[in-house]
């Protein structure tokens, strides 16, 4: 059975079917991310004064990732334009660059995640709080790097102006509770990991499709170049949506 309107535009819609399908999918994605953004707004508005963190994420890394994703959006579009110009080798080049940029984005995000999972807030039995990156976990003690003591939890909320940092060694007998900055740390980290994690999964999904179209899927170029070009276009639409989501995630999580 032949699938209709894979190349020609359907008369009643004016576009080929895959494009309508992709836009319908993106509409559902808008509602998915919209729901999560809505949850973020509610959590943030409802947070008591001084309890919502600021400056916990690296702005330079976030900015770099924004630029990388924006560049990958351009290269994916150039890959499609190369198909339209019947320049298959150029298509391969631009699509490979897109994949590479996506991989760099994921690596930077992975580094940021790792940083959060190694960052600990340790409540001591004398009431003080030690905050820093876990360097060593020994049987009787823990060693924190880039660490500092604070008198209260509220002092940790503003990460933009941290005090002096150094190495702190704590005996386990001194520790009442220790917790990393993972999703369970507080409301901010929970919504941060949920939003960026879901975005990351979308990115990985897009990379898989691009890798297929770059590798085995590119065989279609020889038999049906128009249809292949349309496949590249709809996968590009998805990628631009992923970029759009990040354009809002970056300021909301890193800058405000």
């Amino acid at each position, binding site marked *: 059975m032949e699938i209709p309107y894979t190349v020609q535009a359907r008369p009643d819609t004016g576009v080929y079917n895959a494009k309508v399908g992709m*836009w319908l999918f993106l509409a559902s994605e808008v*509602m998915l991310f919209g729901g999560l953004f809505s949850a973020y707004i509610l959590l943030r508005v409802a947070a008591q004064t001084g309890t919502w963190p600021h400056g916990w994420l690296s702005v330079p890394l976030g900015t770099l990732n924004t*630029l990388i994703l924006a560049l990958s959006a351009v290269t994916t579009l150039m890959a499609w334009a190369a198909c339209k110009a019947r320049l298959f080798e150029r298509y391969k080049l631009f699509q490979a660059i897109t994949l590479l940029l996506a991989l760099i984005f994921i690596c930077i995000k992975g580094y940021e995640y790792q940083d959060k999972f190694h960052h600990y807030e340790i409540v001591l039995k004398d009431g003080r709080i030690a905050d820093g990156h876990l360097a060593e976990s020994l049987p009787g003690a823990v060693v924190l790097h880039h660490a500092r003591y604070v008198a209260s939890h509220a002092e940790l909320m503003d990460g933009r102006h941290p005090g002096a940092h150094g190495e702190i060694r704590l005996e386990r007998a001194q520790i009442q509770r220790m917790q990393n900055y993972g999703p369970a740390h507080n409301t901010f980290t929970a919504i941060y990991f949920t939003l960026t994690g879901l975005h990351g999964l979308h990115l990985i999904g897009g990379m898989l499709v691009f890798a297929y179209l770059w590798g085995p899927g590119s065989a279609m170029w020889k038999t049906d170049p128009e249809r292949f070009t349309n496949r590249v276009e709809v996968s590009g639409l998805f990628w631009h949506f992923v970029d*759009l989501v990040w354009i809002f995630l970056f300021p909301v999580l890193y800058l405000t």
Partner: protein
Amino acid sequence: MSEPLSPDAFRTYARRCGLVFLVVACMTLLMVGASYLPLKNHALTIGIILAVASVNAGLVAGYLMHLISEQKMIYTLLAFTGIFFVGLMGLSVFAAHDVPALLHQTVTR
């Protein structure tokens, strides 16, 4: 079936894409700069940042997703998405400001 792009048209397209990237990059840096503005009103800072982000999103949607020259069918679909999205955000705003309670007070007064 659409006509293939000529080599000249491809180069023109590449230049336009490069320009869009430059503008998006500049706007991103502007957004980061705005976040460091020493404004007393935090809501104003957030407003400025989100306004710049919206311009960025508009550029990506308009030029990179070709929404400036799409078919009516796609615009119709997006219009419905927009309505539902505004409704969703409206629910959040109403919930945050306890709007049903306010409405109830207005009715009982």
